[in-house]
C-alpha cells in the first residue's frame, strides 16, 4: 500500500493536470483502503443482520427447529393483528411527547438563555438541562418509575395542592400510562433539543438580533422572525433524532412498563423483543422489525427534505 500511496502523492499538485486519470484511480484505491475496515464492521454487524431479518420475516421459525417459508403471512399478521397495530399507533402517539413538546419548549428556553445576562446561570442551566440526555435511558425510566409511583413526587405534589383525588399509580393506569411514558421521553429529549438549538442560535449573526432590537422587535416577534428561520437545520436534526427515538423507543418502555398495563404502552421495539426472545416467534418479530424500519424511513425522508431545503 505504502509504495502506491507514495507514488500517487508524489505527483503532487503541479502535475495534477497531466497525470489526472492515473492519480484519480490511485487516490480511489487509497480511499477504499481507508474505508474498508469501517465498512467491514458496519457490513458484518449491521447490514448482514438486516439482510437476515428480511429473510427471517418470510419464515415461520421458533429459533430452534427447521424454519418453514410462509411468504407474506407474517406481514399480513403485522397489518391485521390489533395488538401489533396498537403498538405502532402508540409509538406515533409518543412523537407528541418525544418531539413536539420538547422542541416547542426548547425553542423558548434557547431563546431565553440567549437573553440571559449571567454567563454562570446560562452555563449552569444548560448543563442541568442536558443531564437527562446523558444518563442511560433505562436509568431515566427507573427514576420516573419512582416519580410516578403511588408514593412518588407526582402524587405528593397533587396531594400538597389538595388534588389528592387525582393521585394514582400513573404507570399502572390504562388511560394515563402512555402519556406518562411520554413524559419520560420528553424529559430525556428536552435538554438535547435545548443544547442543539443553542448552538444554532450561536451561529446566527448577532447583528440581525441587534437590528431587530433597534427596530423595537419584542421577544415573540424576534423569535418568530429571526430565531426560528435561522434554526431551520438544527430543528431538522432535533426532529429527526427525537422522532427516531419515539418510534424506536425500547429502553424507556422496557424498564418502566414492559408495555403494560395490558398493551396500553406497548411499542414495536418492546413487542419485537418479547415476540423474538420470550415467545420464540422469530419470523413475526422480524416482520415487525422490518415494518418499524420502513416506518422510520417513511417518516424521516420527507422530514429531511423539508429541513434540508435551502431557503
Amino acid at each position: 500500500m505504502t509504495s502506491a500511496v507514495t507514488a500517487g502523492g508524489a505527483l503532487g499538485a503541479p502535475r495534477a493536470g497531466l497525470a489526472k486519470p492515473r492519480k484519480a484511480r490511485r487516490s480511489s484505491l487509497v480511499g477504499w483502503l481507508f474505508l474498508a475496515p469501517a465498512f467491514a464492521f458496519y457490513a458484518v454487524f449491521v447490514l448482514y443482520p438486516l439482510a437476515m431479518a428480511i429473510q427471517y420475516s418470510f419464515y415461520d421459525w421458533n429459533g430452534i427447529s427447521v424454519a418453514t417459508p410462509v411468504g407474506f403471512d407474517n406481514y399480513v399478521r403485522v397489518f391485521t393483528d390489533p395488538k401489533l397495530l396498537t403498538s405502532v399507533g402508540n409509538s406515533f402517539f409518543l412523537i407528541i411527547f418525544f418531539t413536539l413538546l420538547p422542541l416547542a419548549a426548547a425553542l423558548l428556553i434557547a431563546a431565553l438563555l440567549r437573553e440571559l445576562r449571567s454567563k454562570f446561570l446560562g452555563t449552569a442551566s444548560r448543563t442541568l438541562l442536558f443531564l437527562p440526555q446523558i444518563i442511560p435511558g433505562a436509568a431515566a425510566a427507573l427514576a420516573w418509575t419512582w416519580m410516578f409511583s403511588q408514593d412518588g413526587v407526582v402524587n405528593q405534589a397533587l396531594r400538597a395542592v389538595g388534588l389528592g383525588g387525582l393521585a394514582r399509580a400513573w404507570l399502572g393506569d390504562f388511560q394515563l400510562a402512555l402519556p406518562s411514558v411520554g413524559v419520560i421521553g420528553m424529559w430525556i429529549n428536552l435538554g438535547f433539543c435545548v443544547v442543539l438549538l443553542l448552538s444554532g442560535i450561536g451561529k446566527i449573526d448577532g447583528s440581525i438580533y441587534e437590528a431587530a432590537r433597534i427596530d423595537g422587535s419584542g421577544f415573540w416577534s424576534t423569535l418568530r422572525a429571526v430565531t426560528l428561520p435561522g434554526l431551520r437545520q438544527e430543528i431538522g436534526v432535533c426532529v429527526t433524532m427525537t422522532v427516531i427515538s419515539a418510534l424506536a423507543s425500547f429502553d424507556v418502555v422496557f424498564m418502566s412498563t414492559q408495555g403494560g398495563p395490558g398493551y396500553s404502552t406497548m411499542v414495536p421495539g418492546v413487542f419485537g423483543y418479547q415476540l423474538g426472545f420470550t415467545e420464540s416467534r422469530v419470523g413475526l418479530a422480524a416482520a415487525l422489525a422490518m415494518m418499524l424500519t420502513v416506518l422510520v424511513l417513511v417518516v424521516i425522508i420527507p422530514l429531511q427534505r423539508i429541513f434540508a431545503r435551502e431557503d
Partner: protein
Amino acid sequence: MRVNRSERFGGGVMLAAAVLFSILPLLSMASAALQPQGTIPVGIQWPSDPQWHNFIDAWNVASITPLLISSAILVLLVVPLAAFLATLAGYALGGLKVRGATVLLLVLMLGLTLPKEATIIPLYYQMRAWGMLNSRVGLAMVLVGTFMPFAVYWMRAHFMSVPGELTEAAQIDGANSWRNFVHIQLPLALPAISSMCILLFLWTWNTFLQALVLIDDPTKRTMAGALQNFVGQYSTDVVLLNAGALLIMAPTILVFLLLFRAQNVPLTRQNAAKRREVEKPLAVSCPGSADCLQGGNASPPALRSPLGAGHPPRVGQVPDGFPTGVPVPDSGVCRSDGRCRRPGARRPRCRAPSAAGPGMTRCWPTGPGMHRHGSAMRSP
C-alpha cells in the same frame, strides 16, 4: 430585542421550571436513597438523618465494582477502535476523492436511521452461531459496527471543512496520502475526534438492548444493561434501589460534567474572541508578522510573504465553516484567537505544512492564495 421587566420575569420563571423539571427526578432519587433502610420513603423529602452508608450497601449488592471494570473494558475495546476506523473512513469520504463514495455514504445513512431493535434478533442468532454470545469482545465488535454510521458521518463532516489547500500544500512538499493523513489531517482532527470519543464513551456505557440480549451474565454487561437485573432483585427495597440506580448513573454524569464542560469552554472563548476581533481588527501582539499567521481570510497573502514582514498582520476571522475550537497544530505558535505564545521569536519562519517532520505545521494556510506563496514562505 426589547424585553420589558414582566417578560424577563416570565422568562426566568419558565427557565427555572425547566431546570427544575430536569433535575427533580434525580433529586427525588437522592432523597429516597438517603432515608433509613426498611422505611418506605415518600416522594421528595429533606433527609433529616441522611444514611450515607446506603450507598456503600448498594455498591455491594449492585456489584458496582465488577460492573465498573466490565464497562471500562468495553469502553476500552470500543472507543479507540471505533474512533480510529471512523477517522480513516471519514477522511476518505470527506478529504479524498473516492469513486463510489456517494453510494457508500447512502448505505451508511441508512444505518443512521436504522433502529437497533430491527437487527437485534438476527444479531443474536448470528453471534450464537459464531460462539460469541456472553463475550465482551463480541459485544464490543457489535457496538463498533453499530456506531460506524454516526462516527464516520461525524468525521466526514470535519474533514470536509478542512480547506483542500492544506492537502495541496502537503503534496507540494512531497507528502504522500498516509503522511498527509497522519501528520497534517490527524492533528487538526483531534478536537473533532475527542468530542466524538466522549459521545462514543457515553453510548457504550449506556448500551442497554445489545448488552441485555448478547450477554447473559449481568456482571459482564454494561452498567446500564445490569440495571434490569438489579431492579428485578431489589424492586421492593425502594431505598437501596434508588441508591444503586444513582451509583449506576454517577459515572456518566461525572464524565459529562468534567469533559463536556471542558469541550465547551474553548467554543465559547473562541466566540468571544471572534466578537472582539470584529470590534478591533488590528492586533499588535504579533511583532514577527508571518510567525503569527492564523486562520484569517481577512489577511491578504502579501502580508504573509517576506515582503510583509514588519507589518502587523491583520487578525481576521476564522474561515467560514471551519470547526471552532481547532487549535493551530503543533508548537502552539499562534492560537486561533490570534495571540502568539512566543511573541519574542526573532525571525519569522513560516512554512507550508508538510510531512517532512514534526514542527513544520506552524502556519495556518488560510486563503486560497496560500499555496501559491508556498515556496516563498519556505525560505524567508
